């Protein structure tokens, strides 16, 4: 079976001693017309290499803000975020883009494939931006990545010709384009039916199995139970880090899922 990533002796199934992600006293305050709103209240969190971590929380709990801190999409008001020894809270936008392209794969809830590029071109785009592979190898690698997500036969179609599940498979292939050690997925199954979501989850499990560190925000109670560790966020703080408690929490989640989905729609239409 084709491995999703190049074999890296450092990436084993077992977490290494040094954490891949190290968040220290991360605080985030948003300015609103009603005053300051504290989204994260001094978070301390470490995630080791090879872990498959699920971030769980109600709508507005701060889990997306937490993910944004790790991906560098947003910056902490105070505190430090270290990823693989890189202090990303100190990077400039350009350094951040470079780091993100090489060391991080992102999977969005709404897939976010570029609509005017074909499937294979979408997968090749990160390689192009980061100049990660020689140009003549990029196509071959993109096809191989698409094969692993069973999308090679759709390589030359436009995203609009694919179903939601198919688009998310392509998005996963794209997140692996530059073979990053870390994959961050923000509710990757939130917009998919349960069967497709399950298939998608298996892909993430496989990635984790192959040594990638996967951090995923999810509401799906059944899926949340399958991660190696759950981090529960409430009111901007990490309240639990055990899977049993997570399961208890997840049983109460349907309301949260609905409100979260509505929120996403609202943002998308704004």
């Amino acid at each position, binding site marked *: 079976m084709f491995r999703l990533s190049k074999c890296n002796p450092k990436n084993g199934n077992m977490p290494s001693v040094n954490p891949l992600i190290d968040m220290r006293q991360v605080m985030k305050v948003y300015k609103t017309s009603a005053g300051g709103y504290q989204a994260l209240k001094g978070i301390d969190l470490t995630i080791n290499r090879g872990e498959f971590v699920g971030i769980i929380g109600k709508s507005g709990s701060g889990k997306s803000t937490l993910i944004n801190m790790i991906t560098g999409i947003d910056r902490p008001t105070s505190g430090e975020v270290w990823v693989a020894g890189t202090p990303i809270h100190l990077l400039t936008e350009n350094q951040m883009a470079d780091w993100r392209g090489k060391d991080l794969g*992102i999977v*969005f809830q709404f897939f976010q494939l570029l609509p*005017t*590029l074909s499937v294979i*071109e979408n997968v090749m785009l990160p390689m192009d931006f980061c100049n990660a592979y020689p140009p003549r190898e990029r*196509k071959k690698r993109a096809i191989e990545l698409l094969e692993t997500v069973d999308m090679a036969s759709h390589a030359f179609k436009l995203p609009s010709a694919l179903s939601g599940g198919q688009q998310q498979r392509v998005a996963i292939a794209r997140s692996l384009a530059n073979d990053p050690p870390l994959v961050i997925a923000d509710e990757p199954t939130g917009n998919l039916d349960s069967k497709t979501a399950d298939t998608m989850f298996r892909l993430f499990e496989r990635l984790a199995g192959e040594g990638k560190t996967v951090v995923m925000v999810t509401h799906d109670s059944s899926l949340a139970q399958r991660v190696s560790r759950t981090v529960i966020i409430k009111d901007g703080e990490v309240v639990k880090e055990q899977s049993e408690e997570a399961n208890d929490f997840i049983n109460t989640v349907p309301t949260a899922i609905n409100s979260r989905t509505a929120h996403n729609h609202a943002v998308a239409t704004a």
Partner: protein
Amino acid sequence: MAYPRWKKILADLWSSKARTILAALSIAVGIFAVGVVTTAYFLVRDAMVLDYENANPRTARIYTESFDESLVKDVAKVPGVTAAQGYFDAWLKGLGADGNLYPVDVTMIESLDALNVDRLVFEGGSRKLSKGEIYMERAGAEGMGLKVGSTIDLKGNDGEVRTLKIVGLVHDVNANPFRFNQKTAAYVTPETMSWLGETNLYNNIAIITDGLHTDINQVREIAERAAGTVKQHGKEVYSVNINNPGQHPAQSIINSVLALMGALAIMSVLLSIFLVINTISALMSQQIRQIGVMKALGAKVGQLICMYLALVEAFGLLALLIGLPLGALVAYGFAHWLLMMLNADMIPFYLPAQSVILQALVGLVVPLVGAVAPVISGARLTVREAISNIGMDSTGSQGWIDRMLASERIQSLRWPSRPLMLSLRNAFRRKSRLILTLITLTLGGAIFISVFSVRDSLYRELDQNYGYYQSDVNIEMNQNQKIDRMVVAVQDIPGVVSGEGWLSSRLNVMHADGVNSDLVLAFAPPSDTKLITPVMIEGRWLLPEDENGLVADNHFLSTRPDVKVNDTVVLRINKQDHLFTVVGIFRLAGNSTIGTVYLNRETLERLSGVGTEMTNSFKVVTTRHDAASQMEVLRRLQTRLDAKDIDAYLQTGSDIIASSRSTLNMLIYLLLFMAVLIAIVGGLGLMGTMGMNGIERTREIGVMRSIGAVNSKIYQLVVAEGMFIGLISWGLGWLVSFPIANLLDRQLGQMLLNVPLVYVFSAQGPIFWLVVVLLLSVLASLMPARNAVRLTIRDILAYE
């Protein structure tokens, strides 16, 4: 395929065809305008230079007593004179194919080949000119309906009518363009000139001077030396005329036209820049989410800037492909029309390199400059800002307008309705976009409205000309007549109310050196004339007691800018110099190369020695003043004068006005052409921005439909928003049109009349622009709304 980011640029171009076309057209408009103006400028300039240079034009002309070829040979030897040619011409009247008499300036020439100054260009027929034969100037022949092989009846100054055979057509660069004043030129041999009852000796000598022909002082110095030689031959020098040496006779008209065109080009480029900035910012705000995704995938700011600037350059290239050939085509047509009006030949078409470079700058550099700010700000957004779509044009900002529209008091009003209020709020929602749209539309509207105002200012000038041509029929006589005799001759003719006896003459205003002079048209009405309502620029009109007073027009000032009110000038009348005080400067519209002065008839009678109560220009007032009635009376007058054996040339007041209107009409057509072009530019801008606004709001339209808005309501909302923006821009455009119109009035007036045009408010401009803006607003809003309502809600909500 190795570089998907470049593929994305191409795919973006191709997948959003409407947007691509709009963006390319916005840029193409600027390229087109610059192309038309610059290409036409170079074509006209080169054609006029060629036309002028082909004639080997004179730089000075010396009027003297009759002389023969020996004087010409001696003048040609004067240091600094490179060529000399003797001339004699007489104004006769030629019968056109339409039965009307036209003034024909008949010039004596030995042959076409013998001319070495003010050469004629042979246009067809026989190169050999014999007795009883005539060459006609081509524009005059065409205007009078005459051809080579046909004959022309010429009425001589002795009253005899002689028939001459037209054996050839020539082009005379110095001849009055027939289209402007219905006068023409013709050429006969000395033998024929004698047969026509005129002398066969020369009375003026045209010379070409050495050195730079535009250096008037050098030309004057050499002309003075040549005049000295004339005096050495025992001949009295009447005057030395140096009229804009080195310049085409129609240069001032061309300058006015080109100045207007230049103004148009600058305004179009300015408009185009705003259109481009507008288009690119709209494009960037559509692309924000994709920019966020690309940044999340590792795209650096520099890469994104390069990508989007490349997209802008692609729009520019497309625009060049559209604008360049279209501009060249229209420029060729325009130059052709202008040259035809000026009786000059069109040169073979070519694309001037300067024009292409300028168009390339407008097409490739201006968009780049315009796009830099929106592209950089788009590319520098953080991923969070981009993905959550709150970046470039914040929707959350609450200005006083937003607060006012959202206030409880406004919300509790019965009118405007909720959907209309939503349209108003939407219009103000994206403020930077609104400002850009408004700047573009305001500028377009302001130029459009001001063009109409300038046109009306020109019309006003023309209307004021009636003040100098209040007689209904003018009778110009070859011999002075007693006023009493004329009154008796015309008073019982039906339709005639009264008559006034004037004197008119061509006089020389002498320079301080006593040799050089400027020719002026002098009119001497009776001191109690009722046929003039002058428009004074400075000083006052003549009073009966102004024995040696004169009033001069604005054209006189362009040849003698040193002259002010209360200054004295020297007029040479009947070979004697007389001092006159300038008591006023009056305003006369139209394009004239020589000035006009008025003095009291009694003074001119006395100084010219023609006797008392004499006239050579009799003005008749009729009961009715329309062109047809004037013509009817003219015919009766002609019959009566023929019966009384009074040789005269008759012209109606309407014809004189029409003739003075012709040059200004050309500028008015040009202004209207400008207005149409600006309307297209502004219209495209409006269509573009509204279209882009609409495309951006597709998702919002989907949401509204999902909560129950029917299609008609969606149309109503979007169209109301478009019309609202159009209306604001209309009001602002009207305000901005005042300074623009004033600026154009000043520039154009200075160039045409030597004084600024007076601002005139034109209601047509704002009304036409309101109609244009509202129509375009509706059209531009309907298109994207129509597209949006045709999509399913699911498609719209997934819309990128």
